[in-house]
């Protein structure tokens, strides 16, 4: 178990990477941010690029610790949280 002050690793892929201008960042969560939905709302305020990346949340998908997640999925210290558009492989 990561300790309560451990940062989260945030990863961005595809156009979320391009809009935020970063592929990876480390953040320490403020109190009260405990779900994917709350994390998105908090991240969107970090920069205009972040705001643009998260502007249309219906087109944003998420994985927590390499498993697909949804807005209600809990997030906490030490987690790896990735944001990306709907996948288009194959």
């Amino acid at each position, binding site marked *: 178990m990561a300790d309560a002050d451990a940062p989260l690793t945030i990863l961005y*892929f595809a156009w979320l990477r391009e809009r935020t201008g970063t592929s990876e960042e480390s953040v320490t969560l403020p109190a009260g941010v405990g779900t994917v939905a709350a994390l998105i709302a908090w991240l969107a305020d970090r920069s205009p690029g972040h705001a643009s990346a998260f502007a249309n949340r219906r087109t944003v998908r998420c994985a927590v610790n*390499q498993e697909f997640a949804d807005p209600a999925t809990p997030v906490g210290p030490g987690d790896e949280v*990735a944001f*990306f*558009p*709907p*996948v*288009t*492989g*194959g």
Partner: protein
Amino acid sequence: MARIRVQPEDFDIGAEFAALTAGRSDIGGIGCFVGTVRSNADDRVAAMTLEHYPAMTERAIAGIVAEAERRWELLGCTVIHRVGRLTAGENIVLVLAASAHRQPALDATAFLIDWLKTRAPFWKKEEHADGGATWVAAREADDAAAARW
């Protein structure tokens, strides 16, 4: 026992069939799908770049393969997905599914590619002949195809 690889290099289709079936006589049919970079006439695609989420990709594919193995009696399975920049006509993805009979082999092949398209963390950015580049949008038809299973 499934073979799963994510790699920039091309794959050798004949060699992958041979590896799947070598020394076996319990297999009755092998289904296969190969996806390639298509450059259609009205919107010429010169190349595409496939981005993925390295820490998650193989795990996600292994989960899809495990689901196929749960649904059909498979005797072997291969999924190879390329990443990086690929030009028109190049191979993108290979799926092989072997079974005692043809129906499970064909059904598992279709299932694997449908789910790879909608549940594995890959993203395609297409380069157009006019110099522009755009992220490919997910297709509702793909979601519908994946939801059939």
